[in-house]
């Protein structure tokens, strides 16, 4: 019966089994996860057993399948729906359970304390938004807590100050945008987090919200019904600052850089130009394009809860492939604009290239080098 309900909910009958979803799915490069076949089984297999489908946790919700589908289906959403069924049935990997629990209790998936959310900003002179500001910088979970990604948040602050942006943060009032909760199948939790954020945002008369993470950006832009604020990913905002001449990049950064399009920024939201614009504005920097870029970019496997679940083939990592491709290009830096990409790619760089090999950086870190 489950299959039939899914078929109704996700219009699976309209699928023509062309295979374009599976052909583009990054996971199909390394695991047995076959999204096209999953759809078909939901349609024809009366006693499909979802509970045993561990492969469901492989999906990184990169949405390539949805973008490629010629019949307007949304297989990504179906995976999320299937995961909800697993979550309801309690069949979830323990690491995912922990992340979800932490989200519910602490407002972040990293089992960190709510009160420590703004600790990274101590001593930087960052305003709380309650003190009034035009721009709200929505930091996000990893940039708030993860020591590696905190550097990105700090870089952001440095640049904003340089450009004299009047901005503030939510501080400890900020909670996770919920994007990952939704993609791990916890729709209820996502809605709760959304309500909390919406309520907080309503209280402050800001003009613009800028996010570090494309995941937060995507959630606000596409999944926060009722949010009447302008939202930008930082690459859009910073590219604007550079354009207006507010952020002069004067120092040379003599490095060969290539850029990884994060799925949630590029494929899903068609933001391809701004990150490149920023990189090209940095004097001395040479930008080399990866063959698989823009619409054809290769997923780093960081989305859809994959930061907390290894998937069925942890040995092989697409991030390794990606780092290798960057090295083949002769790049010294693999730049990106997403906390998850940063973490997965840096991890891979350590394995593939070792210390001192190719460096993985956020665009923002390169920007402050040029200040």
């Amino acid at each position, binding site marked *: 019966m489950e299959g039939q309900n899914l*078929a*109704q909910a996700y*219009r699976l*009958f*309209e*699928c*023509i*089994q062309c295979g374009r979803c599976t052909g583009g799915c990054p996971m199909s490069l390394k695991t047995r996860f076959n999204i096209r*076949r999953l759809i*078909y*089984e939901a*349609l*024809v297999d009366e006693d499909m057993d979802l509970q045993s489908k561990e492969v469901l946790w492989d999906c990184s919700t990169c949405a390539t399948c949805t973008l490629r589908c010629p*019949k307007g289906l949304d297989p990504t959403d179906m995976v999320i729906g299937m995961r909800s069924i697993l979550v309801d049935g309690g069949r979830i990997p323990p690491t995912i359970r922990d992340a979800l629990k932490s989200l519910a209790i602490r407002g972040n998936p990293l089992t960190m304390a709510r009160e420590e959310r703004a600790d990274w900003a101590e001593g930087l002179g960052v305003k709380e938004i309650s003190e009034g500001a035009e721009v709200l910088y929505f930091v996000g979970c990893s940039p708030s807590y993860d020591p590696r990604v905190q550097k990105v948040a700090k870089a952001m602050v440095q640049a904003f100050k340089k450009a004299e942006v009047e901005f503030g943060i939510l501080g400890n009032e900020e909670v996770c945008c919920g994007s990952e909760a939704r993609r791990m199948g916890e729709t209820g939790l996502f809605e709760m987090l959304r309500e909390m954020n919406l309520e907080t945002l309503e209280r402050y008369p800001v003009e613009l919200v800028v996010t570090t993470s494309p995941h937060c950006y995507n959630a606000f832009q596409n999944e926060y019904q009722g949010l009447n604020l302008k939202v930008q990913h930082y690459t859009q905002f910073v590219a604007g600052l550079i354009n207006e001449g507010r952020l002069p990049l004067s120092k040379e950064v003599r490095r060969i850089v290539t850029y990884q399009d994060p799925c949630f920024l590029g494929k899903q939201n068609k933001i391809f130009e701004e990150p490149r614009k920023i990189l090209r504005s940095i004097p001395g920097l040479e930008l080399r394009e990866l063959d698989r870029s823009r619409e054809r970019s290769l997923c780093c496997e960081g989305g859809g809860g994959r930061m907390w679940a290894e998937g069925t083939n942890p040995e092989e990592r697409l991030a390794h492939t990606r780092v290798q491709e960057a090295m083949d290009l002769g790049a010294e830096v693999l730049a990106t604009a997403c906390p998850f990409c940063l973490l997965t790619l840096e991890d891979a760089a350590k394995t593939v290239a070792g210390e001192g090999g190719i460096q993985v950086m956020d665009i923002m870190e390169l920007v402050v080098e040029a200040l």
Partner: protein
Amino acid sequence: MQASLDIADAGFLVYLVEREPSIGGHMAQLDKTFPTLDCSSCILTPKMVDVARHPNIQLISYAEVVGADGGIGHFKVGVKQKPRYVDVDRCTGCGLCVEACRLKGRISSEFDVGVSKRGAVYIPFPQAVPLKATIDPERCVFITRGVCGKVPACEEACSAEAIDFQQKEEMIGLEVGAIIVATGFDLFDARLKPEFGYGLYPNVITGLQFERLSSASGPTRGKITLNGQEPKKVVFIQCVGSRDKSVGVEYCSRVCCMFTAKQAHLVKEKIPDAEVTVLYIDVRAFGKGFEEFYDRVRGEGVMYRRGNASEICKRGERLIVMAEDTLLGESVQLEADLVVLATGITPRGDAQDLATLLRLSTSPDGFFQEAHPKLRPVETEREGVYLAGCCQGPKDIPDGVAQAKAAASSVIIALRNGMEVS
């Protein structure tokens, strides 16, 4: 009909020779038409009436062409008018005789493809043109045995005194400048694929029979029922007797993918809780609005499974369709209480005879051969003889109409040039 209308509109006299008692052909038998779901008879009836009323068209129904001598501009055509045993000038089409016939309800109706029964005297369908009764000489007891009660029941019933058992075959000679052949198609005989049990299981039917079942003016008044019951699991099988060298039919029949999609839609519309599955090899939704229609039908919940059925057998009351689902790579057994075979389009059984008669050639698939497959699709090797519709190859209605008009264009050219000479 379309070809006749165009030529007649251009001011030339047209003789339309139809073998059956009424014009209309297969389209008259259809329920709705893909992809717009227009009611077939609603759009066809006006055309039929136009043909009947056109001052430049002389309709010769229940007749056959038996010879054509001469050439472009001066054909001499022999037409055999079969006896209807009904005086068409008197007959009003009231149908009293039909009701009265002793054999009423005993003979399977050609028009309804056996889904209903008629008598020995019959009017094929209510909108028939001309609306005249015809007596089937092979079945009528009076004709075959010489007696039918004291007085034939039909004769007694007819207040117009139209029944005339004295009628004889007549030969009509026509002189024409050009000829269009538009004799259409036959359907593949599903019995030639015994593995599907057609003819054995009453709930295995053909697509054309389905049309009659689902037609509002058909014998069930549009209710899809078998022995009074609505089927809950319906399986459609495509390419029956097409794309199948095992029965000597290599070509694709071009219309069955779409009429299957249409019929699957009709089942879903009339029996919303029915499970409808279509078994296919490729879905050939190539025409204007076709892919959109195919999308719509799937959206309504029709399940398309790739794999051609191999066999049908029975388990209890239910049919079991055995097939490989090639997308699963597994063989499956589907339960069904109605199986509809999308039987293909074949050349008319007598196409060869007609070809000989008119000195036309046929292509390897058995349909009439056009002069050039790319640039001269309606001309034949014989100057002055043109092709229209499914007799040249399978076609849907719009393509058939276009070809008919194209043939008409060639004829108009021929006739106008003849005019100028004279």
